[in-house]
C-alpha cells in the first residue's frame, strides 16, 4: 500500500512538518498533525473501514464529522483503555494511535457474515424478527436468538474497569453560544464586546466551523483564514469569554440548563496521569444562541453505499481542511448547487471530475459549469453502481441516454438540513419550510435564539448577519448594551453555496428497485424497507421509525430522518408536515458514562451510613449487609463458621442466655406539643390518649388507602412528648408524611417534630439474662420486673451518661433497648459487652434478628407487607383504636375489596420434611388447584431452637386453612407444607414477661 498517494502537494490546515505514525487493523500508516483518523486513512487511499450492521456490506466514509454513520472504530491505548464505536471522522490523530475496525470476521476484506447480504438478504428486511424465526417453538431461545445476537451489534465492549477520571463543573454565564462557525463566532463577539459573560463551545478541536474548509473566501477584504485567526485571538484575550473547543453541547434542558461534554486528553499520545479525561459542564445560561450549522443530505439511489460514495461537501472538507483527494476520477451526483462548488474546487486541485449528474432538469449554475468544461447531465436518473470493496462505476440516464462512468468516488450533493436538534430539545416549535424543504426553528420555548445555517441562512454573508443580530439581541436581553453600532462585515466567495436540495428517494428509471438503496447507513435501512412499512400500514412516522429502525442508530438519523420523511410522504401521498416528526432526544452525539458519573464511583457512588458501633462490629469480623444507605452487621461468624452456623449459634445464645444487637439505624422521631396525643391519634391506627406516661405501645401506620406503611414501638415520655420509632428504611418517609399532614392538613395543631434517628445509639440487650447484665450499669431507675414491666420507657443514666431505656422485645425474650446520645454509643456498648462476658453474651446481627422475630410471628414491613396488606391481613386488627372516629387510612378499610374473605392473610408454614427450607417468594397452591397461586412465602428460616424449618406466608383466606396441607411448586418438585398459626416459640408470650 503506497502511502500518501492521495495527499495534495500543499494546502490544508494540517502540519506537514509533523508526521504521525498510526496503525489500522494492525497495518502501519503515516498521517500528519491536524489529521483525523479518517483524513489520514483517506490520504493513504483507505476507504474500506467497516462492515454494515445487518448485511455486513463493505462500507467507507460517508462524511467528515459527527454525522458519519459508517466509520465506527475501536481505539486501544493499553489493556485497560479500549473504546469502541468512536467515529474515525472525529478521532484526532496522534503518534502511535492504534485503531481497529468493527463488526467483521475475520477481516474487513473477507467477512464471513457478508452472506447476510447476498444469500439471506431477502429474508431479513426490516422487522424480520416479528415475522420469521418462529418455528419450531423453543428454537428461538436456543438457536435463532443467540446466533442473531452474535451477528448483530457493532463494537466490542471493554472488559476492564475504566482507569480514567472524569471531572464535572457547574457554570453560569450571560450568553452561551453553541457552535463556533461564522454565525456563532460573530454572535459571541457581539455579546462579549458588550460586556456579557460569554461561553462559546464547539465540538471540533479547531474553532471555525465551515470556515475551516473555506477556499477563495474573503471577509472584510481579508482571506477568511486570517480573519478567523484574528477573531479567535481576540476572543481568547477577553477575560469575560470562555472558549471551549472539543466540547459538544449534547442536551438542552428546561430553564436554560445546557449539558456540555468536553474532551480533554483523547487527542494526546499519552494520557497524563492525574488529569481527567473528560469534563462535564452543566451550564445555566441567561440566554442561548444556537449556531449549530447544517448537515448535508445523501441521495437515495440503488447501491449508494459502496466505499468511495460519500457526501460532496465532505469531499470538499477533506480537500480544503486536510489536503486529501478522496479519489482520482470522481462523479458528482447533484440535487443542489453546492455540488458544483465541490466540482470546481476538486478540479482546481487536479482531481478529474468525469461528470456532474444533476437530478434537476435545470439550475442556475449548470451553464457556468459547462463553460468551465464540465460535463453536466441534466434531469439525470441514477440506475446503480458497481464495485466490491470500492465503487468502480456508476450508471446514469440523462437526455434519453444511459451511460456508465468508471470512477473511484461518487459525491452526493443532496442539499442541507438545518441542525434543529438542540432547538427541538428545548421544546421549541419546528416549522416546515417548503422552499428549503426543511424544518426550521419557530417559536422558542426557552430564552434562546438560533442563527445561521441551523435556521436556513446558508450563505456566508447571511450567516454573519444573522449571528451578529443574535449576539446583540442575546446580550441586550441580559442587560448589556452593545458597545458600538451594528456593522455587518463584507464577504466574498468564489463559488456560491447556491440552492436546491432533494428529499426522499432520488429518481431512477427502474420500475421496481431490487438493489438496496440506503436511507439509514448505520442500521442498514433501505428505501424498500420504508416502503414495506407503509404497505403494511405503518404510516405514522413514529411507527415507521420503530418498525424499520431508521434513525435509531448512534447517529440518530442525522443523515436519514429527512429522506425517510420524504419517502413516507411520497408513498402515502401526504405532505411532510402531515406525517409528523420523531422527537429529538439528548444526547446529540453519544457521551460517556464516565462524564456523567464524574467522581461518583466506587466508595463515592453513594454515602455509607454507619453507626457508632460499626467499628467494633468490624473488628469482631462481622459480615455486613446494606439496608438503604446503612451498613448493618449481618452476622458475627466465629472461626470456621459459615452464615448458617453463625446464625444458629447466635439464636441459641440469645434464647438461652443473652445477646447484644445494634438497633441504632431504626428511625426515631420526637413528637412534642400540647396537641401531640391528638396528632398521634389522627395519624397512627392506635388509641394514644390513654397511654400512660412511661408506657410503650406498638404503633401501626397506614397510608390513606388503608395499606400498612410502617410500624414501630412508641413510648410516652411525658404527656406532651412521644418517642416514636420507625423501620430503618421508613424513617425519612414517615417524618415526611407527618410533616405533610401537619403543614398542609392540620396546621393549627400545636405539634413539633424532630428527627432523632442519628442522635440516639440504640443497644438492644435480649435474653433471659438481659436484666442481670445491665442493672449494675444503670443509675436512677429500678428495672426490676415489678417496677419496669414489659413495654415501659423512662429516662435515667447509664455509665454516667444520659439514657432513655425502653423495655421492648423483638425476640420474644426479656429485652431492653438502651438509648444513649450517639457520641456515647461505643463506650456504653463496650461496658455492656464487658458485663456480658460472664453470661456468654453473643453479639448478633440482622439475620439472627430476622429468625428470632419470625419464630414469634412478628412481621417485618416490606417482607410480610408489600404495600397491599391491610392491618387485618397481617393479624394487626387488634392494634386499631376502635373508638376513634378517624385516622389516616381508616375510611379505606371499609372499601369492598378490603373486606373480602379470601384476601391474603398471614399464616405460619411447617414443611413436612423439617430439613427443607422454603424459598422466600415461592408460590403456594392448593392440592385441588395446582395451577392457581393462592399465596406466597414471605419469610423462611431454619430455626436452631426448634431444630426445624419455619416460614411465614400470606395465603388467601389463610386463617380458615389451619391444619390444611398446601404445596409449594418448585423446579425440583412439589413441597408439601402444613398451615399453622404464625407463632412457633412460646405462643403464650411468657418469656418476655420475666
Amino acid at each position: 500500500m503506497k502511502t500518501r498517494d492521495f495527499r495534495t502537494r500543499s494546502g490544508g490546515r494540517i502540519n506537514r512538518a509533523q508526521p504521525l505514525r498510526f496503525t489500522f487493523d494492525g497495518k502501519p500508516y503515516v498521517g500528519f498533525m491536524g489529521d483525523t483518523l479518517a483524513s489520514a486513512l483517506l490520504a493513504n487511499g483507505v476507504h474500506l473501514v467497516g462492515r454494515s450492521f445487518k448485511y455486513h456490506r463493505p462500507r467507507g466514509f460517508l462524511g467528515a464529522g459527527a454525522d458519519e454513520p459508517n466509520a465506527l472504530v475501536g481505539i486501544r491505548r493499553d489493556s485497560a483503555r479500549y473504546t469502541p464505536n468512536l467515529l474515525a471522522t472525529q478521532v484526532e490523530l496522534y503518534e502511535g494511535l492504534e485503531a481497529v475496525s468493527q463488526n467483521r470476521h475475520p477481516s474487513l476484506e473477507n467477512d464471513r457474515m457478508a452472506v447476510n447480504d447476498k444469500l439471506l438478504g431477502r429474508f431479513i428486511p426490516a422487522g424480520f424478527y416479528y415475522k420469521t424465526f418462529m418455528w419450531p417453538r423453543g428454537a428461538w431461545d436456543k438457536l435463532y436468538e443467540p446466533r442473531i445476537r452474535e451477528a448483530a451489534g457493532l463494537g466490542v465492549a471493554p472488559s476492564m474497569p475504566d482507569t480514567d477520571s472524569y471531572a464535572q463543573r457547574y457554570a453560569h454565564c450571560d450568553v452561551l453560544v453553541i457552535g463556533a462557525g461564522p454565525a456563532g463566532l460573530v454572535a459571541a463577539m457581539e455579546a462579549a464586546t458588550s460586556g456579557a459573560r460569554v461561553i462559546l463551545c464547539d465540538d471540533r478541536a479547531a474553532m471555525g466551523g465551515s470556515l475551516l474548509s473555506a477556499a477563495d473566501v474573503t471577509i472584510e477584504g481579508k482571506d477568511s483564514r486570517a480573519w478567523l485567526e484574528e477573531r479567535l485571538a481576540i476572543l481568547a484575550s477577553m477575560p469575560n469569554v470562555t472558549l471551549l473547543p472539543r466540547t459538544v453541547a449534547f442536551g438542552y434542558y428546561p430553564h436554560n440548563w445546557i449539558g456540555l461534554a468536553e474532551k480533554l486528553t483523547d487527542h494526546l499520545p499519552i494520557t497524563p496521569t492525574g488529569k481527567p479525561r473528560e469534563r462535564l459542564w452543566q451550564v445555566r445560561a441567561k440566554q442561548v444562541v444556537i449556531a449549530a450549522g447544517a448537515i448535508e443530505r445523501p441521495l437515495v439511489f440503488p447501491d449508494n453505499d459502496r466505499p468511495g460514495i460519500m457526501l460532496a461537501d465532505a469531499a470538499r472538507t477533506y480537500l480544503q481542511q486536510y489536503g486529501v483527494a478522496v479519489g482520482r476520477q470522481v462523479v458528482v451526483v447533484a440535487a443542489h448547487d453546492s455540488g458544483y462548488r465541490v466540482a470546481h474546487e476538486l478540479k482546481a486541485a487536479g482531481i478529474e471530475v468525469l461528470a456532474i449528474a444533476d437530478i434537476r432538469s435545470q439550475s442556475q449554475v449548470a451553464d457556468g459549469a459547462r463553460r468551465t468544461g464540465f460535463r453536466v447531465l441534466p434531469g439525470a436518473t441514477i440506475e446503480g453502481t458497481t464495485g466490491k470493496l470500492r465503487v468502480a462505476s456508476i450508471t446514469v440516464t440523462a437526455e434519453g441516454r444511459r451511460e456508465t462512468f468508471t470512477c473511484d468516488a461518487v459525491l452526493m450533493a443532496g442539499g442541507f438540513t438545518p441542525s434543529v436538534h438542540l432547538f427541538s430539545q428545548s421544546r421549541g416549535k419546528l416549522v416546515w419550510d417548503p422552499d428549503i424543504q426543511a424544518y426550521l426553528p419557530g417559536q422558542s420555548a426557552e430564552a434562546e435564539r438560533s442563527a445561521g445555517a441551523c435556521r436556513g441562512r446558508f450563505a456566508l454573508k447571511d450567516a454573519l448577519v444573522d449571528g451578529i443580530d443574535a449576539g446583540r439581541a442575546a446580550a441586550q436581553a441580559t442587560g448589556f448594551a452593545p458597545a458600538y453600532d451594528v456593522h455587518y462585515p463584507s464577504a466574498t466567495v468564489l463559488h456560491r453555496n447556491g440552492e436546491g436540495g432533494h428529499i426522499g428517494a432520488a429518481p431512477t428509471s427502474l420500475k421496481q428497485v431490487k438493489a438496496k438503496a440506503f436511507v439509514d447507513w448505520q442500521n442498514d435501512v433501505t428505501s424498500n424497507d420504508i416502503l414495506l412499512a407503509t404497505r403494511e400500514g405503518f404510516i405514522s412516522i413514529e411507527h415507521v421509525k420503530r418498525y424499520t429502525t431508521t434513525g435509531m442508530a448512534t447517529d440518530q438519523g442525522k443523515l436519514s430522518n429527512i429522506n425517510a420523511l420524504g419517502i413516507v410522504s411520497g408513498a402515502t401521498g401526504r405532505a411532510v408536515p402531515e406525517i409528523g416528526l420523531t422527537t429529538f432526544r439528548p444526547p446529540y452525539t453519544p457521551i460517556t458514562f464516565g462524564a456523567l458519573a464524574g467522581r461518583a464511583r466506587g466508595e463515592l457512588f453513594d454515602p455509607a451510613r454507619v453507626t457508632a458501633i460499626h467499628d467494633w462490629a468490624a473488628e469482631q469480623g462481622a459480615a455486613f449487609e446494606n439496608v438503604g444507605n446503612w451498613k448493618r452487621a449481618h452476622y458475627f461468624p466465629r472461626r470456621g463458621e459459615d452464615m448458617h452456623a453463625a446464625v444458629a449459634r447466635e439464636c441459641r445464645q440469645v434464647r438461652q442466655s443473652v445477646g447484644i444487637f445494634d438497633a441504632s439505624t431504626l428511625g426515631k422521631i420526637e413528637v412534642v406539643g400540647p396537641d401531640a396525643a391528638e396528632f398521634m391519634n389522627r395519624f397512627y391506627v392506635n388509641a394514644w390518649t390513654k397511654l400512660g406516661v412511661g408506657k410503650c405501645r406498638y404503633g401501626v401506620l397506614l397510608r390513606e388507602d388503608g395499606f400498612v406503611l410502617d410500624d414501630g414501638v412508641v413510648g410516652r415520655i411525658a404527656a406532651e412528648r412521644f418517642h416514636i420509632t420507625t423501620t430503618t428504611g421508613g424513617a425519612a418517609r414517615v417524618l415526611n408524611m407527618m410533616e405533610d399532614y401537619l403543614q398542609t392538613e392540620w396546621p393549627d395543631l400545636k405539634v413539633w417534630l424532630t428527627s432523632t434517628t442519628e442522635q440516639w445509639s440504640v443497644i438492644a440487650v435480649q435474653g433471659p439474662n438481659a436484666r442481670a447484665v445491665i442493672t449494675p450499669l444503670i443509675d436512677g431507675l429500678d428495672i426490676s420486673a415489678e417496677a419496669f414491666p414489659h413495654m415501659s420507657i423512662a429516662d435515667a443514666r447509664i455509665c454516667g451518661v444520659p439514657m432513655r431505656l425502653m423495655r421492648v422485645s423483638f425476640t420474644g425474650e426479656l429485652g431492653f433497648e438502651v438509648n444513649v446520645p450517639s457520641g456515647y454509643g461505643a463506650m456504653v456498648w463496650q461496658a455492656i459487652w464487658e458485663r456480658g462476658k460472664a453470661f456468654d453474651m453473643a453479639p448478633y446481627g440482622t439475620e439472627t434478628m430476622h429468625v428470632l422475630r419470625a419464630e414469634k410471628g412478628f412481621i417485618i414491613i416490606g417482607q410480610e407487607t408489600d404495600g397491599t396488606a391491610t392491618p387485618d391481613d397481617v393479624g394487626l386488627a387488634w392494634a386499631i383504636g376502635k373508638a376513634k372516629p378517624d385516622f389516616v387510612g381508616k375510611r379505606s378499610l371499609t372499601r369492598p375489596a378490603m373486606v373480602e374473605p379470601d384476601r391474603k392473610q398471614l399464616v405460619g408454614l411447617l414443611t413436612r420434611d423439617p430439613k427443607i427450607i422454603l424459598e422466600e417468594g415461592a408460590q403456594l397452591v392448593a392440592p385441588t388447584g395446582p395451577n392457581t397461586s393462592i399465596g406466597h412465602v414471605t419469610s423462611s428460616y431454619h430455626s436452631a431452637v426448634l431444630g426445624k424449618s419455619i416460614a411465614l406466608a400470606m395465603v388467601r383466606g389463610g386463617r380458615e386453612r389451619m391444619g390444611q396441607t398446601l404445596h409449594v411448586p418448585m423446579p425440583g418438585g412439589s413441597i408439601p407444607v402444613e398451615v399453622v398459626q404464625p407463632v412457633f416459640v412460646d405462643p403464650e408470650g411468657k418469656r418476655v414477661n420475666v
Partner: protein
Amino acid sequence: MLVINCPYCGERPELEFSYGGQAHIARPLKPAELGDEEWNAYLYLRANPKGHHAERWRHIHGCARFFNAVRDTRTDHFVATYKIGEPVPEGSRT
C-alpha cells in the same frame, strides 16, 4: 435541573426539593360520610393537564416547608409559587 422559587428561600435548584403531587386537594373533614366512589376519587383521581398544573413541592434540603406552585407541564416553566393555604394566583389557568 429546574430552578424553583421557594416562597421562603428564593430561587434554588431542583435538587433541593421533592415533588408533592397535585395541590388544593383537601382531605375530607368527615371521611366516614363519603361513599366509596367519592372516597376513591379523593384517593386516586388527579388532573394531569397539558398546561397549567397547581402542585405542591417541599424544600426538603432547605427550609423543609411545603408550598404550592403552578407549573406549565408543556414547558416545565413555573408560572407562580405561593404558600400553603393561599389561593391559586390570578392569571393561572388551572
